[in-house]
């Protein structure tokens, strides 16, 4: 029932296949794609499609894809290296960038042919867009309607600070915040929505309040003459994973404007958090839909043969997965895995095998459109893989798992795509997309409130994987924000503690 009716050989006005595009042609394609997307029940934010040049695309790259952002040298560095790569022909530019905002802004490059533009519209403006709107992570953690406003606010605030306190001062704080950006995220607590108007109204209040809190925290007047019983009080009482949040609220020496800068970096980091966790799903979903929408148009006789050939050519390149021993191999291609998984879900619904009934009883033989929508809405990469990666797909990809223990001289092959290996591979591949496995587990453990006010972070390694030596640099940044001694310790498997890095305040 979900499968739309296909009426072949119906002579109808075909859409021109360009290759050059015009605005009227784009509108025609967009109308058709929109019509088809509705058939497949894709629910999207309104689209705002912007045509830009290659230079502007590089600008967009540099500011992490956002149409507006505060100024920082690291974006300049990004821009310079993108430009270098592009000029030398080492890299092409993406065909599109899409922003999780309402309306959903997508950039189309001027250089694309009409086929590519149609592909991008189907991919970004309907695929990604509906993902942004439908997926639970995005719904919970980001507020599409306010991000642009917030960035406007952030840009203004940062440039005001630069005017007031000097570019160098602001840059120092921003550098330090960027170093800890990955630790500016609440993983479990839902953040409050951000809005520019509120932010500005609350800014002054908050600054004042925070400062008073901080002062109070460090008040060390003796309460009575009797020597108080020395108790081992840990502050914070529980380890804090959101280091930037902790700094924003508790760092003793920061000025109010510096706290606000920390907050800005933290908020932006939080905004991108869902994207990091849904790469496979998001790209897979978008590829799945551009594939279906454009094929649907072809089946209806709306687009020409050469259009569909050019489309398939690009599509195949995008979803290709090189093997582990290929010179082009650089890990698992999220487009390939995601697309294959959504296609496989559809297959299990429409054309289930006995194996599917046994392994995936919840999916096999169900309505495919409902099932893929359900999968898109309620999972992130990690859970999506552990839920939907079928044995058939493991066989198709010829997945194998390795166990690489640095203590051993050899790598061990722990599982391959056979009967015994399916579960293990599914589990390991899923873990590979678990963000908490990818980023070192570092938390704020203790502040020596009664002593030298030093801050202790604790690293809990997984599988004995050590921290890279960049930790020393990062600790310097943390020290700048905290203002007193900072310490990084590692909790070993046997429960003992090792101090990894320490950063002392200079005299004065």
């Amino acid at each position, binding site marked *: 029932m979900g499968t739309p009716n296909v009426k072949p050989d119906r002579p109808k006005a075909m859409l021109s296949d360009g290759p050059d595009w015009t605005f009227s042609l784009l509108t025609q394609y967009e109308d058709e794609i929109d019509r088809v997307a509705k058939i497949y029940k894709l629910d999207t934010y309104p689209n705002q499609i912007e045509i830009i040049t290659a230079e502007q695309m590089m600008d967009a790259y540099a500011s992490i894809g956002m149409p507006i952002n505060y100024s920082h040298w690291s974006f300049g560095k990004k821009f310079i290296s993108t430009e270098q790569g592009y000029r030398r022909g080492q890299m092409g530019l993406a065909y599109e960038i899409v922003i999780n905002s309402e309306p959903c802004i997508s950039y189309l490059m001027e250089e694309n042919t009409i086929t590519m533009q149609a592909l991008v519209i189907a991919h970004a403006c309907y695929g990604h867009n509906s993902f942004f709107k439908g997926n639970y992570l995005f719904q919970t953690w980001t507020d599409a309607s306010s991000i642009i406003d917030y960035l406007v606010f952030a840009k203004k605030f940062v440039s005001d600070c630069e005017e007031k306190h000097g*570019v160098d001062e602001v840059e120092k704080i921003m550098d330090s915040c960027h170093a*800890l950006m*990955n630790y500016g995220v609440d993983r479990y607590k839902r953040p409050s929505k951000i809005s520019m108007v509120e932010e500005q109204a609350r800014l002054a209040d908050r600054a004042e309040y925070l400062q008073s809190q901080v002062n109070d925290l460090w008040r060390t007047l003796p309460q009575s003459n009797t020597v108080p019983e020395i108790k081992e009080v840990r502050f914070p009482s529980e380890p804090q994973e959101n280091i930037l949040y902790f700094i924003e609220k508790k760092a003793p020496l920061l000025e109010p404007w510096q706290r606000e800068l920390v907050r800005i970096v933290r908020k932006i980091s939080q905004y991108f958090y869902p994207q990091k966790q849904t790469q496979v799903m998001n790209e897979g979903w978008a590829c799945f839909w551009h594939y279906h929408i454009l094929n649907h148009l072809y089946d209806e006789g709306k687009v020409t043969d050469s259009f569909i050939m050019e489309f398939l050519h690009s599509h195949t390149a995008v979803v290709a997965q090189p093997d582990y021993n290929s010179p082009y191999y650089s890990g698992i291609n999220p487009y390939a895995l995601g697309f294959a998984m959504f296609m496989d879900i559809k297959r299990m619904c429409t054309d289930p095998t006995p194996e599917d009934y046994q392994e995936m009883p919840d999916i096999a033989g169900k309505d495919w459109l409902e099932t893929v929508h359900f999968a898109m809405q309620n999972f992130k990469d990690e859970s999506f893989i552990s839920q939907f990666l079928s044995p058939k797909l493991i066989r198709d990809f010829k997945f194998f798992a390795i166990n690489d223990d640095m203590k051993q001289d050899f790598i061990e092959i722990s599982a391959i795509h056979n009967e015994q290996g399916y579960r293990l591979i599914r589990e*390991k591949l899923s873990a590979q997309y678990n963000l908490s496995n990818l980023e070192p587990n570092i938390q704020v453990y203790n502040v020596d409130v009664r002593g030298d006010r030093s801050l202790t972070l604790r690293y809990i390694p997984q599988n004995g994987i050590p921290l890279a030596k960049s930790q020393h640099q990062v600790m310097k940044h943390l020290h700048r924000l905290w203002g007193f001694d900072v310490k990084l310790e590692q909790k070993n498997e046997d429960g003992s503690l090792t101090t990894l890095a320490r950063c002392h305040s200079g005299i004065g």
Partner: protein
Amino acid sequence: MAHFIDRRLNSKGKSTVNRQRFLRRYKNQIKRSIADAVGQRSVTDVDSGESISIPTRDVSEPVFHTGKGGKREQVHPGNDQFAPGDSVERPLGGEGGGGTGDGDASDSGEGQDEFSFQISKDEYLDLLFEDLALPNLRKTQQKQMIQYETFRSGYQTDGVPSNLDIVRSLKGSVARRIALTSGKKREVKRLKMEIQAFLDDPHEHPIEIAALEKRIAELEGKIKRVPFIDSFDLRFKNYDKRAIPTSKAVMFCLMDVSGSMDQATKDIAKRFYILLYLFLTRNYKDVEVVYIRHHTQAKEVDEQEFFYSQETGGTIVSSALKLMLEIVQNRYDAGEWNVYAAQASDGDNWADDSPSCRQILTDKILPLTRYYSYIEITQRQHQSLWREYETIASNCDNFAMKHIQSAEDIFPTFRELFKSQHTTADGA
């Protein structure tokens, strides 16, 4: 329903600020890179930008990430030979078979030793000559020779036919004709309507009509006599002259090529000349370079020969000064050209010649030149030439001298030579 916006015409320089921030932050490293690059350029090559390399570790943005070691489990696609329990040798480099941490991949830029990029010519020159002033610019401004440039300035009623502005003249013609005839035309129109009124009247009015027609004929005659174009209409383009500071400069490179000057010393000198040339091109439109090399005799040569041909023999510096004076007098009228000179030497000179060098410089050359700089590239004691020049330096403020010992000194010396100029000028 989508909304299309054409952003292509928006400015593309959105990242300019960030780029400038980057350059600003790494100014010191970039300057170092530039100082190295100077030596590899031809003296007159100033049109290109420069490729800059900065060690990657300087520009990296540190984050916490995992390093090598520990136990990792990874899933890879495309199994073609492995069975569970197989042991495989750990691949080197770790690109294909895995084994390196995710950390290395995620930390952008790692694995490359240098972060290289291009800066434009202007950025290059800006950085190179940051906070340097043109020598003597302030003091000699009044004296500076003036050239004239003609430029358009409005219109006039008189002039030669070639300057006639046709459009403007015809506009005047139309205006004049309208001004002179419109009243009469209106009158004619009114009279014609009166005639019509008489004709429409049931009674005959031959006398009145005849009078009116006569009047009309009169007016039309007057209208006809207004000329299509009158000398009064003519407008001619007007040109005026204004004074502009001369934009021509000549730079004399004087170098001792006697046996005591080795290639390393010449290279140091070359860098100095490059800097001077770049510096002049920042301020003058046309810069010519004259190369004079000398041992006991002086000769004007081209760049290649200047730097790279080998000569031996004694040293008489005054020969070069005389040749320079001769060339200035013959080819570069001091009124029209800003003359700069840079002399490089290892300090050797025929002892009896040094006083005469001083003489030529103070009496003849320095009055003609905007700035004369002398650099001595030597590890040894100063000799007679240095002492003679020292007396010049204390008397003339468009003369500067510095001692360079190794290549590292060039840039600081150059900066000092040109920076100190203001204070000297102010003090004098």
